[in-house]
């Protein structure tokens, strides 16, 4: 059957955008939800946030940062090729209504995830301050698109190659310090980033929502691989989330669980790159 890639755009050497024909996903997709895809018939199930969708065309846009062997394989696909599986939309959508002044934070590939949220927040009538962060300028994505829907866009890079030097929390602290009222913060990115955002906003009692990214298998609530602890209760992030109240989330547990297969992942990447390398010599 297959799910065709009708457009590929290289956003940075390791970040690729794909538009995929998947009418059953596009038909009900909403900001904050995700898909689970498999590159080929032997592939692992990879969860990825829905970056955009077009119901008329029946297409869904995903943005992939190449990290493990699976996402690297995905990143090498070209326009016209097909994915073996593409299921969704999974998880609950972001609550998009007029909250007043919101700060939306995206770090790394989390920037792709906040793109439809920023747009939705703006369309719902909010005053939107967007903070995006990455290691370095070349890893920043969607800057112009986000600027177009944000009342203010703040960029932070670890090395200072663009915008503020520092983390997204550096930028958030500056906004708090200048006395801006904030009705809600929504942060999507690496777990450690969401943890530091939560720690910061807890001090100021600012309501904060995070979108959790634990290890998943099915993404539909039937395995419990994605369990997280929120307010002391065990929840399945794929079915009960992925968004939760940041101040209730046990981030240490999330970080620990995310590391569960880390050694194995490193081995796989090496193997993939080794094998990929051999093929070039043939």
């Amino acid at each position, binding site marked *: 059957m297959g799910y065709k890639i009708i457009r590929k755009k290289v956003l940075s050497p390791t970040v690729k955008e794909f538009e995929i024909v998947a009418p059953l996903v596009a038909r009900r997709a909403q900001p904050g939800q995700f898909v689970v895809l498999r590159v080929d018939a032997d592939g692992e199930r990879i969860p990825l946030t829905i970056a955009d969708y077009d119901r008329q065309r029946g297409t869904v846009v995903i943005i992939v940062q190449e990290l493990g062997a699976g996402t690297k394989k995905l990143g090498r696909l070209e326009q016209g090729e097909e994915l073996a599986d593409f299921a*969704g939309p999974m998880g609950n959508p972001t609550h998009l209504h007029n909250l007043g002044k919101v700060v939306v934070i995206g770090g790394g590939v989390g920037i792709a995830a906040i793109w439809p949220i920023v747009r939705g927040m703006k369309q719902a009538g909010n005053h939107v301050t967007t903070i995006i962060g990455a290691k370095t300028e070349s890893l920043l994505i969607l800057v112009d698109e986000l600027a177009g829907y944000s009342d203010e866009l703040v960029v932070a890079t670890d090395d200072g190659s663009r915008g503020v030097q520092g983390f997204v929390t550096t930028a958030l602290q500056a906004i708090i310090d200048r006395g801006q009222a904030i009705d809600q913060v929504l942060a999507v990115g690496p777990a450690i980033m969401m943890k530091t955002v939560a720690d910061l906003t807890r001090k100021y009692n600012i309501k904060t929502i995070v979108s959790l990214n634990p290890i998943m298998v099915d993404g539909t609530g039937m395995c419990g691989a994605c369990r997280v602890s929120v307010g002391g209760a065990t929840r399945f992030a794929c079915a009960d989330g992925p968004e939760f109240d940041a101040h209730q989330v046990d981030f240490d547990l999330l970080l620990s669980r995310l590391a569960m297969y880390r050694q194995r992942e490193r081995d796989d990447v090496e193997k993939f790159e080794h094998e990929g390398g051999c093929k070039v010599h043939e």
Partner: protein
Amino acid sequence: MSDRRKKNSMPEQSPAERRRNFAEVALGYDAETARCEAARCLQCKTSPCRQGCPVEVDIPGFILHIRNGDFAAANEDLLRYNALPAVCGRVCPQEDQCEKLCVLGKNGEPVAIGRLERFAADYARENLPPAPVANVVRPDAPRVAIVGSGPAGVTAAGELAKMGYRVTVFEALHMPGGVLMYGIPEFRLPKAIVQHEIGALRAMGVEIVSNAIVGKSITVDELMNEEGYQAVFIGTGAGLPYFMGIPGENANGVFSANEFLTRSNLMQAWRADSPTPIFVGRRSAVVGGGNVAMDAARTAVRLGAEEVFLVYRRSRQEMPARHEEIDHALEEGVIFRTLTNPTAVRVDDRGWVSGLECVEMELGEPDESGRRRPVVKPGSEHFLPVDSVIMAIGQGPNPLVQSTTPNLRVNRWNNIWTDENGMTSRPGVFAGGDVVTGAATVILAMGAGKRAAQAIDRYLREQK
């Protein structure tokens, strides 16, 4: 000379050998042994065995064909009642069904009905030209949507296609088959057999849409109001894993049996070259006493765990698993810790499980299920060091369809309510299998699928 009071034994891989591979354990009868076993059947006029079979297979009938060497006829006989004989012969709890009522069982062992069923189906699949599958689907017939492709959904789909209806099966996962694909391991039910049956369904004209999560991708109401399905059958199963709710259960190395088995079976993590990781460690504890627990324990053995413990709070007598699987697990070296219950998972400073804190149990008064209730033995606290823990203490119904279909009546465990025909509180919406009954058996799910198909047919005729 074999003992006529005993079943002919079925060849198996030796425990030492099979501990290291995922190939099927039981190898099946050859033709001669099958005929010999069939000759044990007394051909009772009253055929009590039939009453034990949830779908009332004509057991003496198909056995007589085997005895006469007409294996094709035996298989055809079976298929009249049971669409998946190769599966049922392998996984039905025969000792609680047909074989329990067999007259020979009073004075020895019953006829090996399951083994004979398996033999006939395997023989036909392997040796006979595939029976020409008739695609009798009428292009103008009403359309029926089936949600879930486990035994219930697949059976309902097959029955409806035979009646000429246009049937589409929607499956959330990337492969159809339900528990037969993601839960029951290869060494007990080869996946090629399941896919063979799914292939037959497609040949009958049934369309199967995988990666379609009803409730998320599309709702039941949209199927009926926008996509033109005149009836819907919900067979979404009992796939929601339960945890015990004890401290430490979210540690690394603690898995639901569903996760562990899905990684191993559906994602093929048992193959060394699979991209999906799986962890078992040197010592593993499986909590539970049903088929799911046996499958998880035996998978852990094959994945290389040196010691696998089966921790169960009642005694071996109360274990709900098929007897054959309990025997197989013991033969393969699974260490049974019965009358034992975990009270906490001990977690090391890296966030990984280091063992189970347990108490011993004794059996007290019978509870509402008629089984004696386990109670804690005072002062019996002890520690079982392990590297992984697999929870196989039961599953609840998959909740997605219930939560997205207004006015669908459910009970307090969120099982879907149906009337005796399998119709839910929503006209035109039917349900069956584990999502209605709670986790049960393959054959009961198939029976429910078949009855619902008949009810859907009646319903659609009345609608005209």
